[in-house]
């Protein structure tokens, strides 16, 4: 193995970890500040006592991700599509006041779409360099950033967005690695012979859980079913890379989707 292989393999780690590593760090909350002050006092006192062993204080392990809020026991995270509206979307009504990263804002709910809330908050525009109040979509953390396809009453999640770790994994690690070893996350070229064309999926909207006979929440890809293992689907896609060994930059192929449980169960 060469260092280049390792460097390139590291380049293809899960998107969520890339996002997680450079996410804004959580501000220290009040009790932590007081706790740290108390710890300093204790250390100061201990330092005054000769011969006392000192233990290095532990670093706080709390990590921050994208902006998020907790409403009625559900954790909502800023939509990965950055859905920001000037007008309150239809069907949403005032739900109360919530907190996003330590600031209080009004939020709006829609009983028909319990997986979304809109927070009326200050948004800074990098281009105009001005701040204004907007309605910002936050999505139930269990489905946020997940690419789904529904087919025949079943739900499939893309290997790109499937999580086999954490509290609510979409699939088991064993299953994920089994499919990844056999097909990969994305395959280039033609679909294998054991996949049949189901048709073009109907777009159900970003941040939704599709429930159509053949629906997709990321667009309208052509979908193929593995006839030997109906827990696997392919969705047509195109991607671009730096020029490969043949100088090619545009590639056609398929994203792998695997059967998953109801994410809201």
């Amino acid at each position, binding site marked *: 193995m060469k260092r280049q292989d390792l460097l390139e393999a590291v380049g293809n780690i899960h998107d969520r970890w890339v996002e997680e*590593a450079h996410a804004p760090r959580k501000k220290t909350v009040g009790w932590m500040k007081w706790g740290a002050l108390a710890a300093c006092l204790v250390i100061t006192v201990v330092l005054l006592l000769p011969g006392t062993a000192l233990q290095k204080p532990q670093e706080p392990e709390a990590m921050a991700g994208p902006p998020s809020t907790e409403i009625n026991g559900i954790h909502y995270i800023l939509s990965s599509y950055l859905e920001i509206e000037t007008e309150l979307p239809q069907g949403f009504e005032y739900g109360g006041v919530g907190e996003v990263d330590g600031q209080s804002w009004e939020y709006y709910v829609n009983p028909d779409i319990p997986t979304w809330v809109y927070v009326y908050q200050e948004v800074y525009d990098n281009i105009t360099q001005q701040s204004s109040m907007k309605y910002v979509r936050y999505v139930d953390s269990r489905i946020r950033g997940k690419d789904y396809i529904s087919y025949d009453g079943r739900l499939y999640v893309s290997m790109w967005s499937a999580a086999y770790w954490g509290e609510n994994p979409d699939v088991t690690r064993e299953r994920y690695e089994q499919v990844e070893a056999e097909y990969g996350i994305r395959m280039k070229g033609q679909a294998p012979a054991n996949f049949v064309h189901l048709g073009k999926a109907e777009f159900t909207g970003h941040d939704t859980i599709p429930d159509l006979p053949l629906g997709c929440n990321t667009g309208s890809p052509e979908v193929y079913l593995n006839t030997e293992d109906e827990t696997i689907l392919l969705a047509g896609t195109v991607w671009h890379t730096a020029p490969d060994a043949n100088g090619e930059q545009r590639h056609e192929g398929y994203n792998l989707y695997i059967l998953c449980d109801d994410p809201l169960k």
Partner: protein
Amino acid sequence: MADHRDAEECVSDTWLRAWNSMPPQRPAVLSAFLGKITRSLCLNRFRHDHAQKRGGGQLPLVLEELDQALPGGTETEEELDRRQLEQTINGFLAALPEKKRAIFVCRYWYADSIDSIAARFGMSRGGVTMCLSRLRTDLRECLEKGGYAL
């Protein structure tokens, strides 16, 4: 990247490539999608510059450190199963606590400097260096267990 003009060109190329690929490809996490394009462009630029004895910045240091995570044995030209290697690294990262995983990603994905990682996580420079050193050793052991030792 050491050269500011190179960095600007890579950013411009990122927008162009993103424009060409969306739609039909819609990334689950936009920032990571754009970042992967930029990272790939930067590495290509670095290789080109390195061949001409240019370059600098964090990348040579990051590459040097990653050498320590490579399993032992002689280097061969054999084609590696990249997919399997990526799977092994993803498995290694999945098993790490969030903070350690983020430190690893900051250094070896973003090529962040030790100082900036130390500032981000409220650690000392030495603490970050020690943490990375242990992570490289752990990764090396993980790769060896995965059959990457020759």
